[in-house]
């Protein structure tokens, strides 16, 4: 443990597989006899199917089957013949091919299966559906008017202290902020290959952020024993939340494979990625914030109206940020959910908090100008030293340090604080900043480790990695614990039959799994100590882990470093080919008395063209208190990646619906803009890099979400500083500045 903290910069362990094209993503596994499925979507947004004409498609060359609600295999875990109007379920997704009700445009109405991809695509184009069309609701402007909020306990108002206390403050601000529908759009199209084997055993290659959760969902749908479903996801081409759930298309593929008795591959199109795998929901927020003349917050009221589908509730912690980010006695939050004829949204990088921080962090900036106090100073004046919501200490909080790091790097104190005061030629110059936070959690996980007589180590757990570099950081933890070079350690993952690991989401993977890998290596160390106690090596029957160092592929006695034994020596002397241990890792009891959050601070310097309104980044600095940084190289990349996602959120991303038809009109990469090379300047990253002493044994918090959370507010604040124009609805496009 003594040299646990990494100073060296290691490359990703997946590097060679990726750059040579050998890494296999979901649709790329070679499965003998695979056939192709193509989904056909509804062309209306609400109504019911009267009839589907599948004749032409069925007759087309190579077609093996066309599946619709009329002939689908009945999924045992589905509830057939239920009342489609019975209300929203909490977390039960769309049941594919169950009934003829249409809830949203693009909802799968048929699966065409053929022996080649081209034939399946062609045959799918021959499907004709006849609908009874109803009047759909997709217009956000109708929320609270013709579209009524869902009733229910989960949406109760929450009042801490006095309700709406901001109204009585000396200085106050009320403003409305809008975050539009944004779509994750990972580069890998969602894809699945399903193969039924003998005895109803099922193998699924799935794009998923959780091989165990996918296994459980599929087993539940088909009423199989979990062990009879094996899910593989060795490489996942991005997720950002879209691959946290098992979506209807995956169930459709399993149905299809069952019905044609052949392995079936199904890949969504980019358009379908807008309809079938979730999105960040449009949310309209109102903030009321008030302070006394010195800038002390008197009250915050945060209200949010979010969107969900017609068949399922999706809620997120949008308003929670106002309860926890700053010290403020009186906080009122109200959250309403409006069902529309869209598919169910899902968690998208920094879910809830990213939306909530956009509003709160803009509002604080606005308030700072009313108070005539520097925005950073205003935040420091209201710094929470203990968790204001739960009234307990933080396991660690180094947000002040993160502010300082960022402020120094961007040159915050050199700016002229007056709006529209700074210029560079034709460009107006603006500085903006924001804070982001996300819960730092630790869940349960199990890992196993095998140390071999040749001095190699295999660590196993059922996790998948959609990009952050979990394989790399886990390999590094194991290598460091056991004193082995990284190339002697293999981290095996991406297979649901391995010991249960966590889903990669909510910024908890490193904390949860890193602790499990740490734990299993610690167990292995103890097992080695047990052998050394009795084999006479060190003549010490009371030998303890603390007495030795695990280093250079073996063990050395601290009191007498000349006494060193390699793992090979130890195992061969004990006549063992391998040592195997496993460990169940759980959150510590101690954490019950603490709160844990990761924090990010974003500083940006923007240039806004005075004639055209074009926005360019001159400098971006992202700093974070994410606890101990396990793998510096991949951590920096993850932070940069979050900022790039934030640039998209701030300046370009919006999935636009044509309300006449209830359909997206920019459902492709030419029209839904995401940042490309030319949009992204050099991004400077700095970590506080101090371990959290309580959350887990490795000291890491989490980083995936905070990398993005708050960034859009920093941009909006900088644009205001540059131009004096406040843009409260994302994305900040030129027309809103001109």
């Amino acid at each position, binding site marked *: 443990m003594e040299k646990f903290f990494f100073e060296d910069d290691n490359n990703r362990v997946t590097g060679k597989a990726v750059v040579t094209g050998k890494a296999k993503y979901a649709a790329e596994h070679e499965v003998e006899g695979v056939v192709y499925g193509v989904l056909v979507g509804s062309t209306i947004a609400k109504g019911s199917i009267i009839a589907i004409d599948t004749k032409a498609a069925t007759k087309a060359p190579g077609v093996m089957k066309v599946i619709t609600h009329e002939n689908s295999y009945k999924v045992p875990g589905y509830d057939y013949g239920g009342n489609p109007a019975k209300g929203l379920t909490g977390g039960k997704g769309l049941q594919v091919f169950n009934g003829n009700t249409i809830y949203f445009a693009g909802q799968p109405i048929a699966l065409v299966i053929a022996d080649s991809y081209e034939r399946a695509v062609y045959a799918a184009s021959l499907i004709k559906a006849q609908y009874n069309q109803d009047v759909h609701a997709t217009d956000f402007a109708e929320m609270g008017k013709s579209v009524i909020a869902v009733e229910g306990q989960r949406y109760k108002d929450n009042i801490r202290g006095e309700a709406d206390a901001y109204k009585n403050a000396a200085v106050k601000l009320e403003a409305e902020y809008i975050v539009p529908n944004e779509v994750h759009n990972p*580069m890998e199209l969602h894809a699945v290959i399903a193969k039924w084997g003998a005895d109803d055993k099922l193998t699924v290659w799935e794009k998923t952020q959780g091989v165990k959760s996918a296994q459980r969902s599929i087993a539940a749908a088909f009423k199989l024993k979990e062990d009879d479903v094996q899910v593989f996801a060795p490489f996942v081409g991005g997720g950002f939340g879209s691959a946290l759930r098992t979506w209807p298309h995956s169930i459709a593929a399993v149905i299809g494979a069952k019905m044609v008795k052949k392995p079936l591959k199904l890949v969504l199109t980019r358009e379908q990625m807008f309809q079938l795998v979730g999105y960040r929901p449009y949310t309209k927020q109102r903030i009321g914030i008030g302070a006394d003349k010195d800038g002390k917050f008197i009250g915050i009221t945060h209200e949010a109206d979010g969107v969900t589908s017609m068949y399922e509730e999706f809620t997120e912690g949008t308003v929670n940020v106002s309860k926890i980010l700053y010290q403020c006695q009186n906080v009122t939050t109200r959250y309403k959910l409006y069902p529309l004829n869209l598919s169910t949204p899902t968690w998208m990088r920094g879910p809830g908090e990213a939306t909530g921080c956009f509003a709160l962090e803009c509002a604080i900036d606005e308030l700072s100008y009313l108070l005539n106090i520097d925005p950073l100073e205003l935040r420091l004046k209201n710094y929470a030293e203990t968790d204001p919501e739960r009234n307990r200490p933080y396991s660690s909080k180094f947000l002040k340090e993160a502010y300082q790091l960022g402020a120094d790097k961007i040159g915050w104190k050199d700016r002229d604080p007056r709006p529209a005061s700074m210029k560079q030629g034709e460009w107006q110059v603006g500085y903006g900043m924001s804070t982001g936070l996300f819960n730092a959690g630790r869940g349960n996980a199990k890992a196993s480790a095998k140390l071999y007589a040749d001095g190699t180590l295999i660590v196993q757990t059922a996790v998948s990695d959609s990009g952050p570099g979990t394989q790399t950081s886990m390999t590094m933890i194991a290598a460091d614990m056991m004193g082995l070079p990284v190339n002697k350690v293999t981290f095996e993952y991406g297979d649901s039959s391995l010991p249960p690991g966590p889903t990669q989401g909510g910024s908890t993977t490193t904390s949860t799994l890193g602790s499990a890998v740490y734990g299993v290596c610690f167990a292995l160390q103890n097992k080695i100590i047990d052998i050394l106690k009795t084999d006479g090596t060190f003549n010490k029957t009371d030998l303890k882990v603390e007495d030795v160092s695990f280093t250079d592929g073996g063990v050395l006695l601290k009191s007498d470093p000349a006494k060193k034994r390699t793992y090979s020596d130890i195992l061969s002397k004990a006549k063992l080919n391998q040592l195997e241990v496993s460990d169940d890792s759980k959150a510590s009891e101690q954490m019950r008395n603490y709160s844990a959050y990761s924090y990010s601070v974003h500083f940006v310097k923007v240039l806004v063209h005075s004639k055209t309104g074009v926005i360019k980044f001159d400098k971006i600095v992202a700093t974070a208190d994410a606890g101990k940084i396990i793998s510096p190289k991949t951590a920096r990349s993850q932070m940069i990646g979050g900022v790039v996602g934030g640039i998209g959120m701030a300046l370009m991303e919006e999935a636009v619906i044509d309300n006449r038809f209830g359909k997206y009109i920019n459902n492709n990469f030419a029209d839904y803009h995401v940042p490309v090379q030319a949009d992204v300047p050099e991004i400077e990253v700095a970590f506080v890099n101090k371990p959290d002493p309580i959350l887990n044994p490795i000291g890491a918090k989490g980083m995936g979400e905070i990398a993005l959370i708050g960034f859009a507010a920093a941009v909006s604040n900088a644009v205001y500083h540059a131009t004096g124009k406040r843009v409260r609805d994302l994305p900040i496009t030129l027309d809103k500045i001109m």
Partner: protein
Amino acid sequence: MSHNEKLLNDDCHNSRRGFLKKSVAATAIALAPNVIVKAAEDGLDEKAAGYFEKTNIKLTINDIDYSLSIEPRTTLLDLLREQLHLTGSKKGCDYGQCGACTVHVDGKRVLSCLSLAVMQEGKHITTIEGLAKGDDLHPMQQAFIDHDGFQCGYCTPGQIMSAVACVREGHANSPEEVRQYMSGNICRCGAYNNIVDAIIEVKRKGGTI
């Protein structure tokens, strides 16, 4: 026409892909023998499709010669991925909007999702699988590893193929120029900074790549 009839007649698949594939079929019909055209007009076009589905072509991929019988509507990307199991070239959009499918055709970067395989007769194609010389990585591949030029890795083969071409084209003289000439390759993980660093390093080191 009633509302429902109109919906019935709506083509649910007026995607660009559908259009591409259907127009290829239409071109083929124009060149097809009368009997097939007749069959097509009689609404038997699915049967008709069977007559002209396959065409023979010869091409070279990663220095291996292939003689293939393929459907005219097959894209180069789908040929590589689905028939030849060369899955290094990625499908990110299928519409020429993301760069994930970038390969080299006769040394030039090309979007394989926008190229029909039948148009590659006699061409030399290099995919990411053909870039390394045996176990020796191409300098651009090594630079991507060293600079952590990716996260999930899905856009990476396309980025690397584009990056190699970008240097060969003489468009890697400054980070700013690289940003412009690499803007056709989307990386949703946002590895852009590191990709620029990798390309600039390869360019700086010189040598033929």
